[in-house]
C-alpha cells in the first residue's frame, strides 16, 4: 500500500526526500559558500524543525505502515511509523536543526572536500538516519544503515589530506562494518525459518530460547559497535575529533542514538519477550563502558576527544538503563521496566541536545582560535561570551546538576534502581544496588570532567598570546547554540510533560504503563504514593529567589566599591599564564586513582638533559591487548593465503580451469 496523503508517515518521507534534494542541489554550485552554507543549510534546518514538529504532533497516534515499490523485485521497502520511531525522529529533527544552523555559520573556505560535496554527504547522512527510524524490514534497514555509515565516513574524512584523519576514517569504517555484519546475522537469525525479512514476520516468529539469545547478543554486538560500547569503542575517540565540528555533533548527538533505537527495536519489539539474563549482560557492559569512558575523558587534553569519551560514558549509562529495563521485564515487573525505559529515553533525548551543544560550542572555539588542544586555550569567556555562557549550560547539564536536564534522567534512573532489590533472583537483587553505586560514581566523575573542560577552555588566563585575537561566534552560530541550549532548558523544566509524551511509547515497548499520575503539572512524581518527587521549575524558582534576595540584601545594606587588582601571587611576582593547571594536571588525580585503566607511556627528564622534556602518552589498554593481537592474527591469516598469488599467468588460468572442471563435475 502506498502511504496515504496527509498522513504523518507521508510527511516524514517527503521531508527526508527534501533533504536528499537539498543535498543534490549543493552540487549545482559546489564552491559557492554563500549558496551552500548560507542558503541550503538554513533551509535544511527548517526541514529538521518540520520533521520534529510532525513527529511530536503525531506522538500519540496509531502506528502507520506503507510499502514503497522500490528496491528488489520481490522485496519492496516496508515503512512503519510508530511511537518509538516518532521519538527518535523528533530527536533527529530537533538536534539537527540546531546543528545545521550552526554549520551554516561554521563552514569556510579551506582545503579538503568542497562545500557542495559536503552538503550532499551531510544531507544523505541525515536522510539515511531518518530512513533507519522508518524502516520496517531488514533490507530497507540495512540499506539505510550502510548509507549512514558510508556518508558519515566521507564526512569524517573531509580533510583527507592528513594521514591521521584517513586512519581515523578507516578505523571507523572497519568497526562500522563489523557491526553491520553482526546486525545482518541477527536479522538472519530472527527471521526464524520463514525467510521473510519483514519486521512483521520477525515479530510473529517465536524463536526457541537459544536462537533468541543468539539474536540478542548479535544485535547487542552489532549496535554496540555503532554506539561505542567497550571494547568496540576504539573508533569513537578517533573519528569524532577528526570530523568537522558540526559532523562530530551530528555523530555524537544523533548517530549514536540510532544504535540505541536499533537495540530497543530488536529487543522489545521484534524479539518480544526478553529474558532477564540478557539484561544482566547489557547492564554489565553498559556499566563498564560508562566508567571506562568517563575515566578516559578525565585524562584527555584534546577537547573533542574529551567529549568523544564522554559520549562513550553516556552511551554506557543508556545501556545500563536498557539492561535494567530488560531485567525488570524478564522477571515480570513491567511497571518498573516502564520506569527504566522512560529513564533511558529521557537520557537519550538529553544527551542528544547536550552533546550537540557541547560539540557545537567547541566548534565555535575551534573556528575562532584554530586550537583543539586544551593546553593552548584559556580565558575565552572574556573574548567569546556568547559561546562561553551557552556552553556552560551544556557543561552543567552533562554534569548532572539540578535543575538542568541531565539531572532529571539521572534521578529517574536512580528511582528505578531503588526498586532493584525486589527482583526475585538471588545474586541479581544484591548486585543491582552495587550497579547503582557505579552509575553514581560515573555521574560524579562526569562533573569532574566538565569542570576541567569548561575551566581550562573558558576560564583562567589565555595560555597563548594568539588567543587575544579570538572573536565571538557569528549570528548563525549563535542561533544554533541558542536553539540547542533552549532544547536543554525545555527538557529540564518540563519533565512531566515530556514523560507524558513518552508513556505511550513505553507502553508499547514494555507492555505496561506507569500508574496514573496524580501530581500537578509542575511536579514530577513517577510512582505516586512513594513521596519521591522532584519539581524542576520549583527548584529553579526557589534557588533563583534565594539568590536574588541575597543580591538585593547585600546591595541594600552593604554595597561597597569594587576595585580591580592583580591576583594573589603569594609573594612570587612572576606568575604567568603557564602556571595555571594544564589539562593533564587537572586530570592527574584521576590518572593516579584509576591508573589500572590506562596504558601510560612516560618520558621523564633526567637532571643531565640539556633540553628537558616531560611527555605522557595515554593509550588504551584494550587497543594493546585486543586489537593489536587481533590485527596481527588477521595479518598472519592473510599472509598464509599469499601463496595463492603466484604472479604467473599460467597459474591463474589453471585456477579458472580447475574451477570450471569442478563445477562441470558437480552439475553433471
Amino acid at each position, binding site marked *: 500500500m502506498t502511504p496515504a496523503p496527509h498522513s504523518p508517515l507521508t510527511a516524514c518521507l517527503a521531508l527526508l526526500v527534501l533533504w536528499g534534494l537539498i543535498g543534490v542541489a549543493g552540487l549545482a554550485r559546489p564552491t559557492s559558500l554563500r549558496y551552500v552554507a548560507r542558503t541550503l543549510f538554513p533551509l535544511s534546518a527548517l526541514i529538521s524543525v518540520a520533521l520534529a514538529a510532525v513527529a511530536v504532533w503525531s506522538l500519540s497516534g496509531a502506528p502507520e505502515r506503507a510499502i514503497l515499490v522500490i528496491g528488489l523485485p520481490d522485496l519492496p521497502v516496508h515503512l512503519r511509523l510508530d511511537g518509538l520511531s516518532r521519538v527518535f525522529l523528533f530527536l533527529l529533527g530537533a538536534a539537527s536543526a540546531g546543528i545545521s544552523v550552526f554549520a551554516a555559520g561554521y563552514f569556510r573556505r579551506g582545503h579538503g572536500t568542497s562545500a557542495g560535496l559536503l552538503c550532499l554527504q551531510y544531507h544523505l547522512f541525515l536522510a539515511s538516519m531518518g530512513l533507519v527510524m522508518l524502516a520496517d524490514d531488514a533490507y530497507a534497514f540495512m540499506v539505510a544503515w550502510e548509507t549512514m555509515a558510508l556518508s558519515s565516513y566521507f564526512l569524517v574524512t573531509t580533510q583527507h589530506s592528513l594521514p591521521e584523519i584517513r586512519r581515523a576514517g578507516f578505523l571507523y569504517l572497519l568497526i562500522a562494518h563489523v557491526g553491520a555484519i553482526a546486525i545482518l546475522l541477527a536479522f538472519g537469525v530472527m527471521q526464524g525459518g520463514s525467510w521473510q525479512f519483514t519486521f512483521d514476520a520477525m515479530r510473529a516468529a517465536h524463536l526457541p530460547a537459544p536462537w533468541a539469545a543468539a539474536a540478542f547478543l548479535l544485535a547487542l554486538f552489532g549496535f554496540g559497535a555503532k554506539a561505542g560500547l567497550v571494547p568496540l569503542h576504539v573508533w569513537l575517540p578517533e573519528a569524532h575529533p577528526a570530523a568537522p565540528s558540526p559532523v562530530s555533533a551530528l555523530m555524537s548527538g544523533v548517530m549514536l542514538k540510532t544504535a540505541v533505537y536499533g537495540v530497543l527495536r530488536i529487543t522489545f519489539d521484534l524479539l518480544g519477550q526478553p529474558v532477564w539474563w540478557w539484561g544482566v549482560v547489557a547492564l554489565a557492559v553498559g556499566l563498564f563502558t560508562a566508567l571506562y569512558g568517563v575515566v578516559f575523558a578525565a585524562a584527555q587534553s584534546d577537547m573533542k576527544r574529551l567529549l568523544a569519551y564522554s559520549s562513550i560514558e553516556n552511551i554506557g549509562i543508556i545501556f545500563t538503563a536498557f539492561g535494567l529495563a530488560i531485567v525488570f521485564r524478564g522477571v515480570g515487573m513491567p511497571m518498573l521496566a516502564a520506569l527504566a525505559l522512560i529513564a533511558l529515553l529521557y537520557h537519550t533525548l538529553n544527551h542528544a541536545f547536550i552533546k550537540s551543544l557541547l560539540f557545537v560550542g567547541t566548534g565555535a572555539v575551534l573556528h575562532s582560535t584554530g586550537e583543539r588542544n586544551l593546553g593552548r586555550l584559556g580565558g575565552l569567556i572574556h573574548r567569546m561570551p556568547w559561546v562561553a555562557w551557552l556552553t556552560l549550560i551544556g557543561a552543567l547539564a552533562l554534569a548532572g546538576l539540578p535543575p538542568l536536564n541531565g539531572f532529571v534522567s539521572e534521578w529517574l534512573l536512580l528511582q528505578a534502581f531503588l526498586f532493584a532489590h525486589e527482583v526475585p533472583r*538471588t*545474586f541479581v537483587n*544484591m*548486585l543491582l544496588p*552495587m550497579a547503582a553505586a557505579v552509575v553514581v560514581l560515573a555521574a560524579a566523575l562526569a562533573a569532574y570532567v566538565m569542570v576541567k573542560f569548561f575551566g581550562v577552555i573558558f576560564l583562567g588566563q589565555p595560555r597563548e598570546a594568539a588567543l587575544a585575537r579570538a572573536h565571538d561566534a557569528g549570528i548563525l552560530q549563535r542561533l544554533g547554540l541558542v536553539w540547542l541550549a533552549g532544547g536543554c532548558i525545555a527538557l529540564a523544566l518540563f519533565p512531566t510533560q515530556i514523560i507524558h509524551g513518552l508513556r505511550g511509547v513505553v507502553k508499547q515497548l514494555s507492555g505496561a504503563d506507569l500508574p496514573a499520575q496524580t501530581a500537578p503539572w509542575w511536579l514530577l512524581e513517577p510512582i505516586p504514593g512513594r513521596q519521591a518527587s522532584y519539581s524542576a521549575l520549583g527548584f529553579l524558582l526557589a534557588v533563583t529567589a534565594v539568590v536574588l534576595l541575597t543580591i538585593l540584601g547585600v546591595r541594600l545594606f552593604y554595597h561597597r566599591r569594587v576595585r580591580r587588582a592583580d591576583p594573589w601571587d603569594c609573594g612570587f611576582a612572576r606568575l604567568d599564564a603557564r602556571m595555571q593547571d594544564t589539562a593533564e594536571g587537572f586530570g592527574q588525580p584521576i590518572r593516579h586513582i584509576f591508573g*589500572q585503566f590506562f596504558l601510560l607511556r612516560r618520558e621523564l627528564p633526567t637532571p643531565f638533559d640539556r633540553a628537558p622534556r616531560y611527555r605522557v602518552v595515554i593509550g588504551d589498554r584494550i587497543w594493546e591487548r585486543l586489537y593489536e593481537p587481533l590485527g596481527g592474527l588477521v595479518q598472519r591469516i592473510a599472509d598464509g593465503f599469499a601463496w595463492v598469488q603466484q604472479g604467473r599467468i599460467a597459474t591463474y588460468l589453471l585456477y579458472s580451469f580447475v574451477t570450471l572442471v569442478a563445477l562441470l563435475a558437480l552439475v553433471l
Partner: protein
Amino acid sequence: MSAVPLTLQLLNFCAALLLLLSFAMLSQRRVVNLVNLLAVQGSVLLLATLLLAARTGQHHLYLSAALTLGLKVILLPWLLHRLIRRLGVYWDAEPLLNISGTMLLGVLIVVFAFGLAQPISQLASTATRNAIGIAVAVVLLSFLMMITRRKAMSQVVGFLSMENGLFFGAMSATYGMPMVVEFGVALDVLVAVLVLGIFFFQIREQFDSLDLHHLETLREEAGQRRGT
C-alpha cells in the same frame, strides 16, 4: 519493622561487626594490629555465644563460650604476639593486589556469599539463620586475606579468622557444634599454631626473612636438570 527482641538485634549487630572486622583485617598492614583485630573478633564471638546461650538456654554454649574466651581471646593472641616479638615481623610487605582492588574483590565475595547463603538460610530452623551468609562471607574473606598476603604471619591470622567464621556459621545454623567436635577443632587449631611457629623459625633461618615468595624458589626448572 516489627518489634524484634533485643538479643536477636544484638546478635545481628555482632554478625555485622564480624563482617566489618574481616574487612578491617583485609586492609591492615601492621601485623600487631592484625593480631589485635583477631582478639577483638574472638571477643565478638564470645559475646555472640553468650547471647545465644542466654536466648536459647542451651548450657553447652556456656562451655563453648569459656573455650572461646580461653583460646581465641587470650591464649592464641598471646602466642602470636610472642612469636611476633621473637621473629621481629612487625610489618607486612606490599600485598599482591592493591588495597582498593582487594576491597572491591571483597565486596564481590560478600555479594556472592550472601547470594549463596540465601537458600541455606531457608532450610535452617534457627532464629539467627540470616547470619549464615555473613559466616560464609567471613570464611571467604579470610581466605582472600591468606591469598593476597606475603608474610607468613598474616596468613596464620587469616587461617585463624577462617576458623572463627566457621564457628560462627555453625552457631547461627545449628546453635553450635557437638562438644566433641568443638574440642577437637580447638585442639587442632592450637597444635597448628604451635607447629607453624616452629616452621617460621626454620623458614627464617633458611631465608633470613619470612617473606613467602622466597619459598617460590623451590620448584622444578627445565634448565636445572641439565645441571646448569
